[in-house]
């Protein structure tokens, strides 16, 4: 595939939904243009009803565009071919409750055309990779939210896609599961996968994304790299040991004499989620289901040989 082709290209996308029989329409996406390059982790942000999920559904060919063009690896998104290299984890995923985790991933692997000879190894690898090996033979109906997200990620990755679309992957998941999802996303990034992610947890987006776009009422409000958008290039922070008041005053005077200004003196704080994670025994909370989680292999302790998503399977 041509390397100059972006993973996702959206040009002038508008999506209207008819809301009454008289033809009154609701504009969910309004003249949106975006480009997601290969290998990026791209965050699509916005309040509820801003058009994020609609945009994702159009990218996946689940909805048609009213106006505009959406291409995935250069293929128009309404074509089945465009989904060949895409893995999708829907928001609050519901899967076939009557299947076991292993059966579910195997089913999607077969749908995606993973060759029979590689099927078993491939399914085992991704189930192991998301840390659900010990619960793989349980029915999905008994899984907690965190485990559903993990098995959802496994089905999204089983055919080794180049683009992974994650719609609110941490919705309803506790901070431990949420942090583990971030780790998995970063692992995908290290493997060169392109990830499109939506989330309301902005701190989480900040941790994993290279670029973000903010939508509101279907319109693109801002788009760029995190450094461009939230970095303060005209400011610097120095973190030092605690200083007595007299020394701070001396420092201020010294800076003033050189034409600089000491803008603020603050006590640095650890983030609350970091404190939470440091106090929680991770091994006992994976999947968020006590008694089960204790048997689950945490992603952080996945052996190095399987710490990267298997990529030996040929493309579907």
């Amino acid at each position: 595939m041509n390397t100059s082709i972006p993973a996702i290209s959206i040009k002038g996308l508008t999506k209207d939904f008819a809301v009454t029989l008289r033809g009154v329409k609701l504009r969910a996406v309004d003249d949106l243009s975006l480009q997601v390059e290969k290998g990026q982790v791209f965050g699509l942000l916005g309040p509820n009803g801003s058009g994020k999920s609609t945009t994702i559904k159009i990218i996946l060919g689940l909805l048609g565009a009213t106006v505009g063009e959406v291409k995935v690896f250069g293929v128009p998104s309404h074509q089945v071919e465009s989904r060949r290299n895409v893995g999708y984890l829907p928001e609050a995923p519901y899967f076939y409750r009557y299947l076991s985790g292993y059966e579910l991933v195997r089913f999607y692997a077969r749908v995606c055309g993973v060759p029979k000879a590689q099927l078993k190894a491939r399914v085992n690898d991704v189930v192991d990779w998301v840390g659900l090996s010990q619960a793989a033979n349980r029915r999905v109906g008994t899984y907690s939210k965190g485990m559903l997200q993990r098995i959802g990620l496994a089905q999204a990755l089983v055919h080794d896609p180049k683009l992974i679309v994650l719609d609110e992957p941490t919705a309803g998941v506790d901070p431990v599961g949420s942090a583990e999802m971030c780790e998995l996303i970063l692992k995908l990034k290290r493997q060169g996968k392109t990830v499109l992610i939506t989330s309301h947890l902005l701190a989480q987006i900040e941790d994993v994304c290279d670029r973000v776009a903010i939508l509101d009422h279907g319109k693109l409000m801002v788009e760029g790299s995190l450094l461009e958008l939230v970095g303060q290039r005209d400011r610097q922070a120095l973190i030092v040991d605690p200083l007595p008041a007299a020394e701070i005053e001396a420092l201020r005077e010294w800076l003033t004499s050189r034409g600089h200004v000491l803008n603020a003196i603050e006590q640095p704080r650890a983030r609350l989620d970091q404190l939470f994670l440091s106090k929680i025994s991770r091994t006992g909370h994976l999947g968020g289901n006590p008694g089960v989680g204790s048997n689950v292999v945490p992603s952080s302790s996945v052996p190095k040989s399987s710490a990267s998503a298997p990529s030996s399977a040929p493309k579907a």
Partner: protein
Amino acid sequence: MSALSVPFSFNRLALIASNTFLEAVRQKLFNFLLLLAVGLVASAQFFRDFNFGSSELKFIADFGFGALIFFGSALTITATAQLFFSEIENRTALTLLAKPIWRAEFVFGKFLGVFSVIGVFCALTIGLMMALLWHREGQLMAANPEAFEAGRIMRYGDLFIVGVLQWLKFGVLSAIVLLIASFSNTNLYTVVTGFFALVICHLQYLARDSWSNVDSLVLRSVVRLLSFVFPNFQLFNLSDEIGQGAGLDPMLAGRVALYALGYITVIGGLAVYSFRNREI
């Protein structure tokens, strides 16, 4: 890059069908089938007290087909609607249709899954009915040997063929329900409309018979059109032919089977067309 670089796949279609069948089995629809079958066996105890002689066998066959048609129709409509809408309402369709599959594979996969479930129901019911008839016929032969001088009178092959034709009829009904589901927003609307369609298809022959008596050209044309749009389910009622005269005409059975397959293909195609642009 061509849109056809992901070709239509019968493997994926079979996967979706087998998953639909598995859903029916694991979500207790299959238990419902077994319960009906056991009920049919248990009800055979009542017939022993009647001892109508050879006409009793016809009665048992009619009773069995009555049960098959009644419960089979109800099962076909509810199972088709349920197994289709469970994908939409549980949002599993989102994940599945985001994979490189054609909507036609999804629709025909759902159809084949439901058709398999109904096939198991028909096989169980007809199998039990035939076993019951065989057993009772043996008892009657022992009690009245003179009435069975020429051997067994029930044509079990004909029973089997009529069972297969009923299965095909349920297939047509399932395709109709799937067509309704392809544009409907709710399970309830699909089930209710499906039952209306069932009644219309059973009474369709009345329209066919009456169009020649209608004076208005427009009305006559409408009635005639409707009589072709809706399949005539009365054509499948061949159980009266069993055990009479030369028995079931194989050519007639073949024509009815082709009639059913034709309607399944056309209505299934319409369902795919309707579902193709449905927004999930």
